[in-house]
């Protein structure tokens, strides 16, 4: 079997005993190809739709690619006229512009020779459509709405929260893996127990704490409660436990301070685990929704997720803008998926944590 056939059969190597297709191969193939369509299809459909004009979005049945109907300005007519492919009685087709429609008959003119009116049955004409990407869907929300602001807020929250998470979690993991002290296992237990405390259980009192700290309507109020992730401490501690203590003892002999041991010896050696945590943290913080929704009530402070949900919940949803901004919101996560997905999948398979 060639490589292509092997891929189509989703099978590695030659069939055992030269068997042909087993029914399980058929099920496998259907499941995988079906999965490919169902998992990617919706996002791809959204991305295609995001380039359509509002008129094209309202069409049913919808087209897959963003088409717009062509118009032409014709001498002697004020408004631009709609262009059609019209079937002539002799069987040929001509591109004509419609002047008006009376009942079933459409009165049309040739854009090149606007003097003569041609009458065509309306069923014999189809609109001329050209592929056109409505890039204004993307530029308008940035210029006229606050989406540039939202994008900046999201980037700020994601980057700052991730940096603080890395520092704070790695420090705690260092203390919990490389020092003997009373209450160490209690501290570890408390950290792991907080895995049990989801936001939905503590959001009311957390809100009051944030308010009394003066962090309501502040991006810091979004960032701070999220940075001490138990998952992060856990991943980093497990990794640091594998670093030999001899390295640290040797550094102490050389009069290195504890702080230097932390950031010049332990941190560089923990880089792979830090990278995994950084990827996780970026995805978590970029995707956060409920907490920012509670803390941020002023429009100029919204993150992309909050802004999107507010705009899409309005009575007159401007779908052409919403779709485009959804694509923008998806971009970082899609980049992570393309380039860093294997670190996440191995991270989850290894620890069972998300």
């Amino acid at each position, binding site marked *: 079997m060639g490589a292509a056939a*092997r*891929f189509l059969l989703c*099978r590695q190597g030659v069939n055992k005993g030269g068997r042909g297709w087993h029914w*399980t191969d058929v*099920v*496998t193939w259907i*499941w995988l190809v079906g*999965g*490919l369509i*169902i*998992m*990617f299809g*919706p*996002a791809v*459909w*959204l991305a295609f739709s995001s380039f359509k004009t509002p008129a094209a979005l309202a069409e049913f049945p*919808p087209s897959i690619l963003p088409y717009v109907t062509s118009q032409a300005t014709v001498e002697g007519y004020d408004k631009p006229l709609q262009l059609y492919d019209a079937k002539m009685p002799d069987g040929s087709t001509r591109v004509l512009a419609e002047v008006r429609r009376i009942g079933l008959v459409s009165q049309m003119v040739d854009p090149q020779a606007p003097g003569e009116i041609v009458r065509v049955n309306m069923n014999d004409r189809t609109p001329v459509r050209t592929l056109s990407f409505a890039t204004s869907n993307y530029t308008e929300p940035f210029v006229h709405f606050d989406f540039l602001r939202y994008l900046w807020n999201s980037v700020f929250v994601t980057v700052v929260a991730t*940096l603080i998470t*890395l*520092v*704070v*979690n790695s*420090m705690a993991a260092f203390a*919990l893996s490389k*020092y003997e*002290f009373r209450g160490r296992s209690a*501290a570890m237990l*408390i*950290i792991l127990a907080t895995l*049990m*405390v989801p936001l*939905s259980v*503590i*959001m*009311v*009192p957390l*809100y*009051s*704490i944030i308010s009394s700290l003066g962090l309501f309507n502040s991006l810091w109020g979004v960032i*701070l*409660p999220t940075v*001490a992730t138990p998952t992060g401490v856990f991943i980093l501690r497990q990794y640091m436990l594998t670093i030999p203590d001899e390295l640290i003892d040797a550094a102490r002999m050389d009069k290195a*301070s*504890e*702080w230097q041991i932390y950031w010049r010896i332990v941190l*560089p050696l923990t880089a792979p685990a830090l990278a995994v945590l950084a990827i996780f943290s970026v995805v978590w913080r970029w*995707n956060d*929704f409920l907490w920012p929704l509670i803390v941020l009530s002023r429009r100029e402070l919204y993150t992309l997720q909050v802004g*999107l949900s507010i705009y*899409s919940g309005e009575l007159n949803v401007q*779908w052409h803008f*919403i*779709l485009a901004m959804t694509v923008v919101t*998806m971009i970082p996560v899609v980049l992570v998926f393309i380039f860093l997905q*294997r670190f*996440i*999948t191995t991270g989850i*398979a*290894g620890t069972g944590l*998300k």
Partner: protein
Amino acid sequence: MSTASSPSRLGALLMTPVHFVMRLVDAPLRGLQKATGIGGMAAFFLAPNMLIFGIFVLLPLVINFVYSMTGGTAFFLSERQFVGADQYARLFTCGSYLDPMSCQEDAFWTAVGNTFWFVILQVALMIVTALITALILNRDLAARSFWRAVFFFPVLLSPVVVGLIWKWILQRQGLLNFILYEFGGTEPYTWLTDRNWTFAATIGVSIWAHMGFYALILLAGLQAIPKDLYEAAEMDGTRPARVFWRITLPLLAPNLLVVVVLALIRAVQIFDEVYVLTGGGPGTSTLYLTQYIYETGFASVLRNPGLAAAASILMGVVLVVLTLFQLGIGRKQENKGKR
């Protein structure tokens, strides 16, 4: 130190600005070390994380109980009056315990009922799909990591994006109506105004978004099953169905149980994607517990943080029971391994 592999390089890049700051703080920290000794430094390293934990997780956890025993609309505890167990009593005041609509807080019981059916159906369907996906990914596939990634893709998407993707597909002029029209000639339907379809949609969408995560864990479990068992079964000419029921399923059972509990814990808290997709509607047909807490505590005009706190504590009890159950499974597995 070797930093040749790509994750290390990425890590190094991310750490660059941090390294600069860390060089600056070394001198004062040497002073601290001299004053407190190495043990003091351990406390210093642990402090920031524990401080943040204490303020933003443990403290709220404790004052949540106080909240649930106070009344009024104020958020600051000092401005709230003590009402004892009134909030809980209000949640449980019902004309008839068989009819949620007869309760004083009918919205709460509607949310509880909706969440209950959502959890049962979503977890059952999702685990079955995840198991089938894991079994298929565990086969002798060409480009397995590609296929694994395919099913994992939606897991990374934000719930808001997931909600909007599907809201767009279920629109009147959306993809679903388009497909039904092309292949079945059916007239377009407004799915998100129909109570039953909306409920089904929240289940389907949340399965779509999270299934890949559970498939991944189950796949890791399948790959840990010793290959020689399968080889022995093949030598004996055992039928594939029998291999599945007698080898795969019993050996996967511990993983499966953990995955089920994890999925239950997550499903009870469902909020984000549903909030964007349906907003809890039409009516209250997709109003789930977290949204009830959110709206009672923050969003509605007659907000009642105390009532929201009481409801969140009841939800927390369910989650703690589930988590203890999960820990119990883990303990049992460890004991089995020792014997």
